[in-house]
């Protein structure tokens, strides 16, 4: 196995044992980027010299006795996350030459942990989209089939992990932007609970649902990264002072440790030697929303999810049918709340303080209108327009306020279900990756692709997409939605599934 193909867990083991160095690992990733990124186009910026310097520093720290965590692990960050001294474009012409003056809190935490930044990945402009086609710098291609989209908006991060250009990547998820590319590219994508990690230094899209997320090769790896990223930040008032659990310990909790009565199948009886549990999920309940399995779900995706169901039953879990009657309103709610917040958040790009400023402007008003008109791409403009309209006098109550009220219903409904079951299981996307250009003329069709991922965003719940099969040689992803701050539960289900299956080990041939 090549070094760039390693998971975080495997790489840390080799680094701690002194078998490899961070420089070896980083160089292997940089070589892979050079080898294939002409075809995939996952990256907007490569930080070659900086990465080697950071890798050397990590090796020096390890030589002094430091171990574990993310020390010396190379990663890629979505180009909407501020990285000090490095170009940060949001894949927009308006920020084409913008150099971030400071680090986002999550980048700072990763830097302190010794992770190595390899570069910045492509996305839909300002994270507006689900295919990475809305990038001002051209689309990213799916490593499984270069004619297909990688999903989005964190499509560059998804493609980079799938093609082993890095060990893991950071994305952001506002309405599925980490989970969708994870599903389309056949990798693991975690959207933590809203507020679990700081948003400081993420360019704001929809402040009430924006979450920094993780794309990696295994569920365990996302747990390792979240351990470093999670926690309260004084620069983000929406991060509660909720203690961060030890996720590794959460992951390994056996049924007995969870309070399942000894003697039941799969449980180790007191006094018995601890052995590998073949029914690690005994005593846990999985809810499957009936509304999610109607017509419109691609048959190949449905077939893959049916197999997942069987596997979870084998692992000891109980499957329960649940109902989320308001989930069908998630897309319309999202496409009011999101554009509304976008129209406000993107007001800061005005040609005055930073970013593109049109030299042809004759007066102050023209500086605004022309810089924004030439700087923003079509989808960003569409969303600014929708939001401005929805918030304008006479329409606010009918659209924005009503959407916020329906959001309450969606949230309450999901919270109530998660009191009855441990986790909700759904497909991540209704289809597999589609051909580049399929929906360019019809934005509404594209919005509808987000139907399964949006509810968890509106409710602020943690959710993960993980590979669970193939349809027409393209990956299928399943989604696990957990209770608020219940990432540990998601890790337990995902890890049990990945120990019993090998979907996550399949690699695209490039």
């Amino acid at each position, binding site marked *: 196995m090549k070094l760039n193909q390693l998971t975080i867990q495997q790489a840390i083991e080799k680094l701690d044992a002194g078998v490899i160095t961070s420089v070896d690992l980083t160089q292997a990733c940089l070589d892979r980027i050079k080898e294939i990124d002409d075809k995939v186009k996952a990256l907007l910026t490569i930080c070659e010299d900086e990465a080697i310097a950071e890798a050397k520093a990590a090796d020096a720290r390890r030589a002094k006795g430091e171990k574990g965590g993310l020390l010396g692990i190379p990663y890629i960050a979505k180009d909407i996350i501020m990285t000090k001294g490095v170009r940060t474009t949001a894949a927009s012409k308006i920020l084409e030459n913008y150099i971030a003056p400071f680090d986002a809190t999550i980048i700072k935490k990763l830097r302190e942990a010794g992770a190595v930044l390899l570069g910045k990945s492509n996305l839909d402009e300002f994270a507006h989209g689900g295919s990475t086609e809305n990038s001002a710098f051209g689309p990213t291609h799916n490593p499984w089939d270069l004619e297909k989209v990688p999903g989005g908006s964190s499509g560059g991060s998804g493609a980079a992990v799938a093609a082993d250009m890095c060990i893991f990547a950071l994305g952001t998820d506002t309405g599925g932007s980490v989970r969708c590319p994870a599903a389309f590219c056949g990798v693991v994508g975690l959207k933590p609970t809203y507020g679990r990690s700081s948003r400081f230094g993420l360019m704001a899209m929809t402040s009430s649902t924006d979450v920094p997320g993780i794309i990696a090769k295994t569920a365990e790896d996302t747990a390792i990264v979240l351990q470093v990223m999670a926690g309260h930040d004084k620069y983000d008032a*929406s991060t509660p002072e909720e203690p961060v659990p030890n996720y590794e310990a959460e992951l390994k909790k056996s049924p007995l440790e969870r309070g399942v009565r000894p003697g039941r199948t799969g449980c180790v009886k007191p006094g018995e030697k601890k052995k590998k549990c073949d029914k690690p999920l005994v005593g846990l309940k999985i809810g499957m929303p009936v509304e999610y399995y109607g017509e419109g779900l691609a048959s190949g995706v449905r077939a893959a999810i049916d197999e997942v169901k069987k596997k979870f039953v084998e692992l000891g879990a109980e499957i329960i049918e649940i109902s989320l009657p308001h989930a069908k309103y998630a897309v319309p709610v999202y496409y009011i709340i999101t554009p509304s917040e976008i129209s406000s958040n993107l007001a800061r790009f005005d040609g005055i*303080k930073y970013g593109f400023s049109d030299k042809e*402007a004759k007066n102050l008003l023209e500086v605004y*209108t022309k810089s924004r008109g030439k700087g923003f791409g079509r989808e960003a*403009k569409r969303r600014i327009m929708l939001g401005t309209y929805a918030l304008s006098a006479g329409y606010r109550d009918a659209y924005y306020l009503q959407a916020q009220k329906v*959001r309450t219903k969606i949230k309450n409904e999901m919270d109530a279900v998660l009191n009855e079951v441990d986790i909700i299981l759904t497909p991540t996307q209704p289809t597999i990756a589609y051909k580049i250009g399929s929906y360019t003329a019809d934005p*509404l069709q594209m919005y509808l692709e987000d139907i399964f991922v949006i509810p968890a965003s509106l409710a602020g719940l943690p959710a993960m997409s993980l590979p669970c099969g193939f349809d027409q040689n393209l990956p299928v992803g399943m989604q696990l939605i957990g209770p608020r701050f219940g990432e540990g539960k998601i890790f337990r289900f995902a890890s049990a599934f990945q120990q019993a299956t090998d979907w996550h080990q399949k690699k695209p041939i490039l």
Partner: protein
Amino acid sequence: MSLHKLATCYLLPDMLSKDEVKKVAALARLELTKDELEIMPGQLSNILSYIDQLKEVDTTGVEPTAQVTGLSDVWRADEVEEWNKQEVKAALNQAPEILGHQIKVKKVLEQD
């Protein structure tokens, strides 16, 4: 798809006229190209008529949700904090025109 409500919205006349689109663009301080002005009324109308289904939800007595953290009134002392000088300089240097320690802009008040 059972979760999707489609089809009918394509048959409705545009909810948003070209003039309304121009007005909203002016409010948003956004210059639209000729092409965009042509497509935008239809595309936005399509999306809005899809969104219209929200009206069928009974929300009597339901509080709106603006955020989901469970937090309320997060306070901090109103104190000026020192920021890294280099970062301040790097931030200022991103402006199209600076004069000393300030960003230079066009006249705010026009003379007649």
